[in-house]
Structures are given as C-alpha cells and as structure tokens.
C-alpha cells in the first residue's frame, strides 16, 4: 500500500522517473545557488532574473514553437544580457546592483510581453509560465542534467572568491581581481539554473526551488557547507514529495513541488535549531559561559 503510493508511480511510469531525475538534477545545482543568493541578500534578484528571461524564451517559442532547445537558448541569451549589463553598469557606476538590475529586468519583461502579445494567443504559453515537469523528453532531461553539471563545476571554480566576496568584498578587491569575474560567473549560473528550472516549473516558479531550500537551510545550520547540503536535500525531498503529491491528487506538478517546499519552510521557521521561533520562545536555561 505504502509502496504503491510512494514508489509505485516511479517503477510504473517512465515520465515519473524522468521527472524525478530532472528534479534531483535541479536540486543539486539550484539549491547551492539559492544559498549564495540568500547569503548575498539577492533572493529577489533571482525573481527579477526569472522575469528577465521571458523575452528570450518568447522569441524562441515564436520562432520554433514549443521547442525547449530554442526556448532555452533564447532564455539564456536574454538572461545573460540582462545579468551582465546590470552587473557591468553597477560595477562601473555608483549605482547599486539591485537598482541597476530592476531597470534592466523591467525593460526585458516589457519586451517579452510585447513579443508575446504581438504574435501569441497561445495556450502553450501557460506551459512557459508554469512549466510541465511531467512532459520531459530525453533530450530535455539531458539538457537539464548538462546544465546542472556545468553549474556544479563552475561553482567549484569560483567557490573561494565567491565566499570571500560575500563576506568582505573590499578585502578581495585588495588581494585579487577574481571578485568581478566570480560575481559575473555567479550571475550567469543564476540564469542557467532559472532557464533549467522553467522547463520543469515555469518561469514564475523556477526560482522557488532555489530560494525556498536556502531559506530552510538557514534555520538548521550556521555552517556554509552544511547549509548547502541541507538545501540540496530539502530541494530533492520537496521535488520527490511534490511529484508523489501531484501524481496522487490533481495538483499540477510545479506548484506541488513548491508547496511541499513551503511546508518544509514553515516547519523550519517554527522548529529550526538556529533561530527557529519555538527555539526562541523556549531557549532553555542560559549557559555558564
């Protein structure tokens, strides 16, 4: 009975296996990115970037229909353009990164909506906005896995400068020029993972599988490595449980995954070891030193 509910769907249906593989790949790559977004106080930047991707994906969609390759390529181009332009403007002028990004993503979003409304009245567009992880073909799955692999490799390369830049950017600037490139590479990774996520979760929810696990991790550890591991686990568990939930009920898969993550988040806020509400209300007797 329990087997039928929890494991049965995956042994029985290939699309469920594909979806599970995809969501695990997304968790492995997206959650660490989310942790850094959160620690660098850029949580909403991910959201902004998700909007920035829209015109690229829309152009890809209009040129070749619901071809995920074309939409991915378009999304990457648009996302990179916005991320890099915003990064360059912020670094070469005094403008804060968020202000600079807001400008570019709004422009990009307006462009996207324009493109869509000129030529589209399509139901398939719902697909772009909310994704469909259950409709993954082999090709798409390979793209997702490839992007996840690239993300982990690049993250390994820029890990040290990225950490130092987050804690003490001025220090990194005085000892190395790696800060700027590391930051731009990080923004690129954000874009790659958003595009990766929107095939499964849609442009609007893609950022959810990055930020929510990061938020969960913050309540369980004070150590960066542990936080990343917890975030990845939380994302994978949300993905699996969301798929099961979606299979057993009529909830669409994308929202189901994010809703499960939300439940985990609420539990963490309440019972988390680090700064959870219950912990704060009943902290126990104070220590000796």
């Amino acid at each position, binding site marked *: 009975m329990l087997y039928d509910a929890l494991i049965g769907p995956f042994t029985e249906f290939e699309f469920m296996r594909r979806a599970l593989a995809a969501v695990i790949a997304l968790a492995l790559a997206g959650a660490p990115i989310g942790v850094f977004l959160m620690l660098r106080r850029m949580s909403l930047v991910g959201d902004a970037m998700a909007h920035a991707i829209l015109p690229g994906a829309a152009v890809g969609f209009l040129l070749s229909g619901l071809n995920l390759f074309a939409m991915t390529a378009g999304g990457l181009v648009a996302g990179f353009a916005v991320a890099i332009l915003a990064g360059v403007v912020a670094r070469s002028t005094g403008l804060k990164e968020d202000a600079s990004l807001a400008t570019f993503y709004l422009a990009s979003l307006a462009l996207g909506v324009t493109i869509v409304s000129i030529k589209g009245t399509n139901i398939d567009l719902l697909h772009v906005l909310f994704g469909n992880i259950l409709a993954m073909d082999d090709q798409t799955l390979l793209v997702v896995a490839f992007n996840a692999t690239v993300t982990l490799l690049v993250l390994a390369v820029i890990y*040290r*400068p990225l950490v*130092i830049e*987050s804690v*003490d950017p*001025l220090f990194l600037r*005085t*000892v190395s020029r790696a800060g700027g490139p590391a930051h731009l590479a990080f923004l690129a990774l954000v874009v790659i993972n958003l595009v990766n996520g929107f095939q499964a979760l849609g442009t609007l929810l893609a950022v959810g599988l990055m930020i929510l696990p990061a938020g969960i991790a913050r309540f369980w550890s004070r150590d*960066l490595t542990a936080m990343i591991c917890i975030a990845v686990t939380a994302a994978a568990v949300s993905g699996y449980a969301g798929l099961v939930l979606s299979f057993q009920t009529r909830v669409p898969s994308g929202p189901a995954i994010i809703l499960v993550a939300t439940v985990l988040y609420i539990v963490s806020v309440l019972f988390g070891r680090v700064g959870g509400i219950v912990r704060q209300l009943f902290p126990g007797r104070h220590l000796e030193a």
Partner: protein
Amino acid sequence: MAALHFHNVTLGYDRHPAVHHLSGEVAPGALVAVIGPNGAGKSTLLRGIVGILKPLDGTIHLGGLDARDIAYLPQSAEIDRSFPISVFDFVGTGLWRGTGLFGGIGKAARDKILRAIGAVGLSGFENRPIGTLSGGQMQRVLFARVLLQDASLIVLDEPFNAIDAKTITDLLALVRRWHGEGRTVLAALHDMEMVRNHFTETLVLARGPVAWGPTAEVLTPENLLVAMRMCEAFDDSAAACAADDISSRAA
C-alpha cells in the same frame, strides 16, 4: 628606494578632491601615523595607496610592490558579519596570496592560521562564526588576517576605534612587531598620545598636507590647530583647480 612615492596626488570622489596635491615619500620600514580631523582625507589617502581608489590627478608609486604585497585593514563596517564563516576560515583568507583560487590549506598553513589566531589572543575561538564576536574580538581577527598576509606594506584605517585599552595594547604590540620586522606601516589614527608614544613619523592631513616628518617635530599644537581649521566646505560649484596653491588653502 622609497616604499611609497606620492607625486602631486589628488584623490577624491566625483571630481571633488578629498586629498589635495600631496607630494612626498615614505621610506621602507617606516612607521607612519596619518592624523587629521574627520573629513581630512585620511581614509581616502589609504584607499588610494591600496589601489581601490584611482587618483584624480598625480601618481602614487608603490616602489615595485605588487597589490598582493599590501595588507589593508579598512574600517570594519564593510564586512558582512552575518555570513556563516568561522574565525578560522576568515583568518585563513589572509593566505590568499599563497593559495589563490585552488591552493589547498595543508598542515603547515593550518598551523600558521592557528598561530595567527593565537598571536591576537583568540585561541579557542577558531570555530566560532564571526557574527558572534564582539567589536574588539573582530578587530583582533582582522589583525590576525593582516598577520597572515605577510605583507611588506601594511595599511591600517583607524584600527583602534571603539576598542578597549587592553586590546589596544595587544594590537599595538603587533604593530611594533611588524615595524621591527622591517615592514612599512601606515595607520590613520586619532589618539595623539598613542601617535606620540609609538609612531616615529607623522603626516598631519587636512585635505592638503599640513606637516609631515618626525612625530616630535610635526605634532605641535600649531599644526593641529591649522588642521582643525581646515576648510571642510564642500563647494558644489567649485571651479576646476588650477593652481598648486596648497599653503594658502591650509592657512
């Protein structure tokens, strides 16, 4: 050869000078205090030296030093203390010059980090997140990192602000140790007594240099008065500076 050479340096923001027409040099191994009222351009000058602010005019020669040979301790407000990083890891970033992007932290490096943490009196704090430290402890951590940077030019921006006497004594001992090892040390300071007792050379700054030389000769009431009266006015519609007329400006 001088460790540092200023040629008619003007540093500032948005064309407005904060340090105006500074010339002079710092000998290798010198122990220099930079003093002056708030807004005199002390921090700006130090930022210019470490290369994070480009001069509006003139040049700063580092006497062949690479950016990596400089250790810079800014005012600590710019550090994100909420980031989850331990004292050990944070101090360890001081080894960047040797490790770079990928270099491993081996046994020798670990010992070095532990010794540096011990040298600033924080043994036992290695695994504490930096967010849990007091202001004085954080300053000790920053000194430990400077210690690890093993730099031949050390630039300290108001390193003893809001620090208790005991910590100041400990950290000053480190500064003297660096001086003894032949490193060049520049520090922006406010405590005249400390400057008089511990620093051999002093630059009194009030946008332009008011006086520069051996501390005993420079640290006179007259010079300090001149510096205090420094025109703090920021003129939005100031004309482009034409002359090198520093003396009239200071007086």
